């Protein structure tokens, strides 16, 4: 019961988003599309940091890999949906396995630093490998073909984006309830205890990395459906921090938290764009505030209070 409410709540929230999107102008739909991408990104980060407790900071790198793979397969071979996005998720996931295998031996802080370094090195690769990624000039993304229809604007992309997001949420929920999900949480709580319980810790950690990377890759594939251009500037640590903030604001450790954090923070960012000179200050302030007073996130706090009052 306790978990069903937030899960259905997030689906309901998504549907509200859908309905709102259906009746607004093109610009709002563009913002909504971006939010949907960030929801999927947040889900991915939630899996590796929230569920498995691995402080991995390379998320933007996998997002970038996803975007470039989807864009290149569409540009070069004109592959129709769903092939580019599947390729994006797959390639990102495979590289995630590699990173996971390498990161096995590392402790929290070293893991954070190593994944951070990997993310920055990846951004350098995006910028320098001009032949493949277009380098600093960026890459133009051809329109996606979905079952015969070519998607040429945000409004046309929206229903597909929404459906994909719902799908990823469902996958995340199923994953959380599966044995894999239980293994993630066991490893997060205590590796030694997990080993004692027979959890294959190494494989679990690698799986967490791979799945998180795959989610980010799929988010990249989604981005390439409605976007026409990608540039390495937006694929660095700043983006990883944005997603981390979303997950933290919503609440580490719950899917509802990840989804709602993405929506809340995404909308807040949109409003923040109106006060650009204060953006960094407000941003930093929010991070510090939440860490000091609401470390389990906005919605965890509310859910706890509801729970407590229900119990009386």
């Amino acid at each position, binding site marked *: 019961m306790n978990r069903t409410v937030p899960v259905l709540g997030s689906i309901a929230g998504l549907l509200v988003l859908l*309905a709102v999107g*259906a009746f607004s102008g093109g610009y709002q739909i563009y913002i909504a599309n971006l939010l949907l991408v960030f929801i999927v990104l947040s889900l991915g980060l939630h899996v590796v940091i929230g569920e498995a407790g691995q402080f991995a900071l390379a998320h933007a790198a996998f997002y970038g890999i996803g975007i470039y793979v989807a864009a290149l397969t569409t540009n070069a071979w004109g592959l129709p949906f769903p092939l580019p996005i599947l390729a994006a998720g797959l390639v990102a996931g495979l590289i995630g396995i590699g990173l996971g295998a390498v990161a096995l031996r590392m402790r929290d802080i070293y893991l954070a630093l190593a994944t951070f370094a990997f993310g920055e090195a990846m951004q350098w690769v995006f910028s320098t490998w001009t032949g493949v990624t277009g380098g*600093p000039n960026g890459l133009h993304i051809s329109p996606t073909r979905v079952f015969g229809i070519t998607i040429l604007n945000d409004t046309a992309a929206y229903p597909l984006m929404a*459906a994909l997001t719902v799908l990823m949420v469902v996958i995340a929920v199923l994953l959380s309830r599966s044995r894999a999900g239980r293994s993630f949480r066991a490893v997060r709580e205590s590796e030694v205890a997990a080993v004692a319980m027979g959890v294959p810790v190494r494989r679990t950690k690698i799986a967490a990395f791979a799945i998180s990377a795959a989610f980010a890759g799929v988010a990249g594939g989604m981005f390439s459906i409605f976007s026409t251009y990608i540039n390495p500037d937006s694929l660095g640590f700043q983006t990883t921090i944005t997603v981390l903030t979303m997950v933290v604001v919503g609440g580490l450790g719950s899917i509802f938290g990840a989804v709602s954090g993405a929506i809340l923070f995404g909308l807040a960012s949109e409003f923040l764009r109106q006060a650009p000179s204060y953006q960094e200050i407000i941003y930093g302030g929010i991070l510090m505030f939440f860490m000091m007073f609401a470390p389990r996130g906005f919605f965890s706090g509310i859910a706890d209070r509801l729970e407590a009052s229900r119990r009386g």
Partner: protein
Amino acid sequence: MKTIRTRIAVAAVAIGMTAGFAGAAYADDAPGVTKDSIKIGLFAPISGPNKAYGFDPLNAAKMWYDKINAEGGVNGRKIDYVVEDTRCNANDLVAAVKKLVEQDHVFILNGGSCSSATVAAKDYVVRNNIPMVMLNASGDGALYPPVKQIYGAFSISQHAVGGSVVEFSVQHFKARKIGYINHDDAYGSWNIEAAKYMAKKDGATLDVQSVSPTISDVTAPMLKIKAANPDVLVLTTYARPAALIVKKAHELGFNKPIILAVTGTANLGQMAENVGGKAALQNFYTQEVLAGAPGSEKLQWVYDMYKKAYPKLAAQPDYPQPYMPYGLPPAMAVVRALKEAGQNPTRDKFLDALSHMKFDSKVMAGPIEFSPQDHAAQESTIYLKFDGKTSTLIPGVYTNAWHYGDK
């Protein structure tokens, strides 16, 4: 109970999707045009770390539009402008453009000071046939190859920066070997392409060092340049790395001419301070794209106009900012094209007017000139010798000869 919830959910999804498809964009030749007004969408970085590139150029464009309005407008219509901040990054620029087009329903777009951000809007603008006249962005990525809807490089394209500075080095200094330090970003790749072409054409060789814009220790690139012993050193970096390199060149005893491209000349007074004064600037030249040296009478009318339009800003130190005049030629081009598009302007008529435009803005070193194959407005540069206090004009206008497709 769960089933009912699921059914409602499915229904909502279905409704959402159908309604989504229904919201298609309407086709309209002249949104933003009413009986007595034309709406223009302006955008530039007006805040944040790159404010210097867009804040005052935007003010210049606005003051031109205000002047035209005061004189009666264009073909009886007033120019109505809406402003968005792009903070010089691609995501914010795309959002700004979409907002202007889809929410504010502007007729045309006039904006963009940061090239790599401006490129992000290219596909959207092309797909929706919206004329985009860049502000002071070089915009190479959106100008080569040219597309029907986009015009730019009113200050100068990065290709022209690289091409013309090589031309200057060869003509003025008779350089056979040119040291060249650029950045490994988009702008760097653009200016080096034309520089290489011009060097080959003029029979000179380039020794290139590409550095990151965030570099702090410039010993390695500068030492390599010195070891290569070129006749001149060209810098197409931003102001901070440029200052570091000039300092390091002085430390290493490099005394050949150093030419700083317009990319790094934002604040020459500060640069003089940053390099430690006259000693490091004994053989130092700057590239300029305006019609005369800063402070010359040729441009006095621009600064007078600014003072009249923005008295409070003009009274502050550091204002107007160095790039301010660059905002005038784009606004001039927009007004001319609107005039030519006539009483019943459409987007296509506007674009058509631009495609064969040529005029002297009285602001830039060369004419503003377009052709159907060339949407880059300005390609000429002048050079000044700067000793830390005064700039002396070197006679001559040097023009880039690289065109799209040249190798």
